[in-house]
């Protein structure tokens, strides 16, 4: 029998629909009427009202955050193009992204879409685990704590994959409003974007640096659409022995909670993330982080792992113990004694203990015979470890407090009882018109180049990067900022970690890169998704990765999925993921979605511009072959590889010059994949001195970055660039953001071998490394010659974000 001493009985059996909705809203349950009715039905069958802790447990388990109801629910999709097409998805995720992974069936994908992170093969004995998460809502309310616990959570995902991986690197990607926004334009109750940006960076810095994990890769994107709802993506990569990838839970195994104590912070984090933000949003939903506790857990748990003292581990994330223990015990059943959970302070109700998202907690599944040994290991390093219950055989969730049963529910109902919602999605494909020809004088081109280099989305992120210890562990061999000299630098395309301290004698490395471009998504989410997938691969290829050994992660941050147009744009992007995954032969290994990124100002609701972050991870056979982006030696030849198309739609150039029309860059997978493979072969044969991809700002920006990162000049003949449309003007050639393009530097003596490899691909020799610091773009055809000084352009690039 359930007792009501330590909990409240919640009246649900006799409630009307209206009362059910009210109950959900008043308790931040974020449950729909259909879901509330399902709960009512369940308890009607039992002929008893639930306790508060039972209702809270269901709300956590069924939350969008934990269950991904939208992406796995039913979607009726209608697309309007020349003709109207309809399609019903029973599970969008399984029918697009996951489907591609299943169809590709890569043997080197060791764990996909089932654990806290995806795992690919590193070598015969080890795997690489990678996970990227979002922590958007908390970062809007309390940017420092929100981002710190964001990275803390991503790290715990890596500690909680299989039996635990050792974290080797972090990656962080942020979307903020314009930091130069005038104060009066900031919505009431919201933080200024500059304050958010600075605090978010500080949060990641303080947590990541204290954990001793280098933050090696990332991006920052500024757009006013993220003013009140910033995006904070945090990711961690780690290494795990192949024989530690599988978890197991046996009946009679004990539940050990390790690390931080439980407090009232982070109550309703999981459910609150499904609610739009406004000035009333409650800051107590944000967790409080303490990296040193997590570091102690990391140090001690790897010891326990290597002594085989536990059978499974997972982290306490969204939903706290309720999710962690609930998931581990799904197949067996579990009994938990909540009075045993160590608390930060007294006074917590049992339901608060159960769903608190207090940080730095891990849950271990321990065979009874190892009971004393495992606790001893943790205690020797001053880590608190307490048994709070055990796994049973009854397939029930039983919660006790001072020996009173306060919850008793079927695992089956908890995990599979949530009704599948049907949502409607529509997408109207916008027509993209070519812009009027862009004719520019020398002065105008020069001005545009400088404006691009100083644009918030292109400028140097050095202010951020140098606050992160991106070299701790000593394994960052391709760094986020690359320069031939101390004091000068350019943006690296991808980071490479050489895990020599963990895997003795290895020559191999791990590449991390990403792709993000919400600007394209404002016009076409399919092209955005395709472009960012291609960009992440391109970035990895540019440092010397073989894309046949690269996998990707998806992170969707979207607005309110109850609005058909918003959900429609997501369906389009998911379809692009499927198409590109298949065409490039690149599997998705994990992912996450954060929906309901919506905020209200003065009663009016706004959704963020859709943002798909693609994070790539791959294995590099020989780290000594990798290349960086600064130019190396004068007189070396410069080649531009790939076709330049008239694609200014969504470009930074178009934004700066207020050009409304334009075609958004498309992806041509066959052509692009062929080029990436050739780049790999050429780099592997030491035929390429430096390499950089063309992305935001196009060819002119990329080649300038290569030059000023080296303190060198470069002479470019724009007439030599291979274009699809012969009538493209010099400005269009210089600033178009066509995908699939690389700039490479080649020594004269290697030219022949280099050309042999690139036979069949579109490429052209477009210039050479100069012997002074002049960056020159010349078109004899158009009688245009732009000449800039490398150091001057470097200063412009460095000066925008220099707080």
């Amino acid at each position, binding site marked *: 029998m359930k007792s009501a001493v330590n909990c409240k009985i919640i009246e649900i059996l006799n409630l009307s629909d209206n009362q059910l909705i009210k109950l959900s809203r008043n308790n931040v349950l974020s449950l729909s009427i259909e879901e509330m009715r399902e709960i009512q039905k369940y308890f009607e069958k039992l002929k008893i009202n639930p306790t508060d802790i039972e209702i809270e447990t269901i709300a956590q388990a069924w939350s969008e955050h934990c269950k991904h109801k939208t992406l796995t629910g039913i979607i009726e999709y209608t697309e309007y193009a020349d003709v109207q097409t309809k399609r019903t998805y029973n599970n969008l995720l399984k029918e697009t992204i996951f489907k591609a992974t299943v169809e590709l069936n890569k043997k080197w994908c060791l764990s996909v879409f089932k654990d806290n992170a995806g795992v690919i093969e590193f070598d015969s004995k080890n795997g690489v685990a990678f996970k990227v998460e979002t922590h958007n809502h908390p970062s809007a309310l309390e940017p420092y704590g929100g981002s710190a616990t964001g990275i803390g959570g991503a790290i715990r995902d890596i500690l909680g994959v299989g039996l635990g991986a050792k974290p080797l690197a972090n990656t962080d990607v942020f979307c903020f409003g314009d930091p130069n926004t005038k104060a009066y334009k900031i919505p009431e109750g919201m933080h200024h974007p500059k304050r958010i940006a600075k605090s978010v960076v500080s949060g990641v810095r303080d947590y990541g640096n204290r954990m001793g994990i280098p933050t090696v890769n990332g991006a920052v994107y500024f757009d006013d659409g993220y003013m009140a709802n910033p995006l904070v993506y945090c990711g961690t990569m780690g290494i795990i022995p192949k024989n530690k990838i599988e978890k197991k839970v046996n009946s009679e195994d004990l539940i050990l909670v390790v690390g931080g104590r439980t407090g009232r912070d982070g109550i309703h984090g999981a459910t609150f993330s499904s609610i739009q933000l406004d000035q009333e949003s409650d800051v107590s939903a944000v967790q409080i982080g303490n990296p040193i506790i997590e570091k102690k857990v990391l140090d001690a748990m790897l010891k326990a792992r290597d002594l085989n003292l536990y059978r499974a581990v997972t982290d306490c994330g969204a939903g706290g113990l309720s999710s962690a223990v609930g998931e581990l015990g799904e197949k067996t059943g579990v009994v938990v004694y909540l009075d045993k959970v160590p608390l930060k302070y007294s006074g917590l109700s049992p339901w608060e203990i159960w769903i608190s998202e207090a940080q730095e907690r891990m849950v271990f599944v321990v065979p009874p015979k190892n009971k004393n040994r495992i606790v001893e290991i943790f205690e020797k390093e001053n880590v608190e470890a307490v048994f709070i219950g055990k796994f049973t055989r009854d397939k029930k969730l039983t919660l006790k407090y001072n020996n009173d049963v306060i919850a008793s529910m079927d695992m089956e109902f908890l995990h599979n009882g949530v009704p599948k919602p049907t949502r409607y999605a529509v997408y109207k494909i916008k027509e993209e018109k070519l812009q009027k020809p862009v004719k520019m004088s020398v002065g105008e081109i020069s001005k545009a180049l400088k404006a691009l280099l100083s644009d918030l989305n292109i400028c140097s992120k050095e202010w951020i*990067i140098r*606050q992160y210890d991106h070299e701790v*562990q*000593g394994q960052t061999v391709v760094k986020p900022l*690359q320069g031939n000299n101390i004091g000068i630098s350019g943006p690296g395309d991808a980071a490479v970690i050489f895990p020599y301290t963990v895997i003795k004698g290895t020559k191999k490395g791990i590449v991390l890169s990403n792709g993000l471009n919400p600007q394209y998504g404002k016009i076409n989410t399919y092209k955005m998704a395709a472009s960012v997938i291609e960009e992440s691969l391109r970035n990895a290829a540019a440092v010397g990765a073989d894309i046949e050994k690269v996998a990707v992660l998806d992170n969707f941050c979207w607005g309110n999925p109850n609005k058909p147009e918003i959900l429609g744009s997501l369906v389009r992007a998911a379809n692009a993921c499927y198409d590109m995954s298949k065409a490039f032969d690149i599997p998705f290994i994990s992912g996450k979605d954060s929906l309901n990124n919506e905020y209200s100002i003065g009663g009016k609701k706004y959704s963020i511009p859709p943002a798909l972050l693609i994070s790539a991870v791959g294995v590099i056979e020989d780290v000594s072959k990798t290349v960086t982006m600064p130019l190396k030696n004068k007189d070396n030849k410069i080649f531009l590889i790939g076709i330049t198309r008239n694609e200014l739609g969504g470009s930074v150039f178009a934004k700066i010059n207020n050009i409304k029309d334009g075609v958004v860059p498309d992806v041509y997978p066959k052509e692009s994949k062929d080029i990436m493979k050739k780049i790999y072969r050429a780099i592997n044969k030491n035929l390429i001195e430096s390499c950089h991809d063309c992305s935001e700002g196009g060819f002119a920006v990329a080649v300038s970055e290569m030059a000023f990162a080296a303190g060198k000049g470069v002479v470019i003949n724009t007439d030599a660039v291979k274009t699809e449309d012969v009538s493209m003007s010099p400005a269009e050639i210089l600033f178009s953001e066509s995908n699939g393009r690389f700039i490479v530097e080649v020594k004269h003596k290697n030219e022949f071998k280099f050309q042999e490899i690139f036979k069949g691909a579109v490429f052209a020799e477009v210039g050479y490394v100069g012997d002074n610091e002049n960056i020159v773009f010349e078109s004899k055809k158009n009688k245009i010659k732009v000449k800039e000084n490398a150091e001057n352009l470097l200063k412009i690039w460095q000066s925008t974000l220099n707080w």
Partner: protein
Amino acid sequence: MKKVKVLILRTAGTNCDYETQAAFELCGGFVERIHINALIEKKDKIFEYDILACPGGFSYGDDIASGKILSNEVKNKLGDKVKKFALSGKPIIGICNGFQVFVKMGLLPDPNIFEQISTLSYNDSDKFECRWVYLKTEKRINGESNCIWTKKLPDIVSLPVAHGEGKFIPNDKKLLDALNKNNQIVFRYTSKDGGKPEYPLNPNGSVEQIAAVSNIKGNVFGLMPHPERYVFTLQHPAREGFDSEYGWGKVIFQNAVDFVK
């Protein structure tokens, strides 16, 4: 050949222990990473080792001030042992947070006095800085460094720094003069050609550009830069080293291992 045993002391928040271990191992050292709790349990275990290293990190979160809590713990619970180890002439290295710990417990610059007489304070830039710097190796003893850790280095060497509190400040002018006179200043931040460095070349605003100091004897060495992050050429931004494979940081660890041998 003697087996050179290295003790790497770690605690909550230590985080450069693995790469420091790898650096010593690359030079032929036999390394154990030992938690301070274990060492406090068996204090004399320290004398089984030939080299003591206190690696980088954020010991106890650098709460109060960087390295402060660990320095108190070491001094109060292991102080006489560590002092004895230092005075016996065995090599000791404190890197970054380890340097902060040594300075705050007074093991540097003078283990005989064993009182804090200098500090490492907040960078002038008031932020954490992760970047490569140029260091001038002070060579005043017959054209060689006084410190056993820094022999055979070129006049200018580059290493990465990563810290928020690295500004070295001696208590007074008298101490500064003594450090100079006794050749205890091992590295100074400099420019590429050996000139006076402005920020960011001097990343923290240290007095007289001091980046590293040793005791008078030259066996106890503390530095803010991270030599363990530059044992391979691959780790250098432009992939330079003393040969095609190894970086200059390795020489520092090799010196200590060879000294013991």
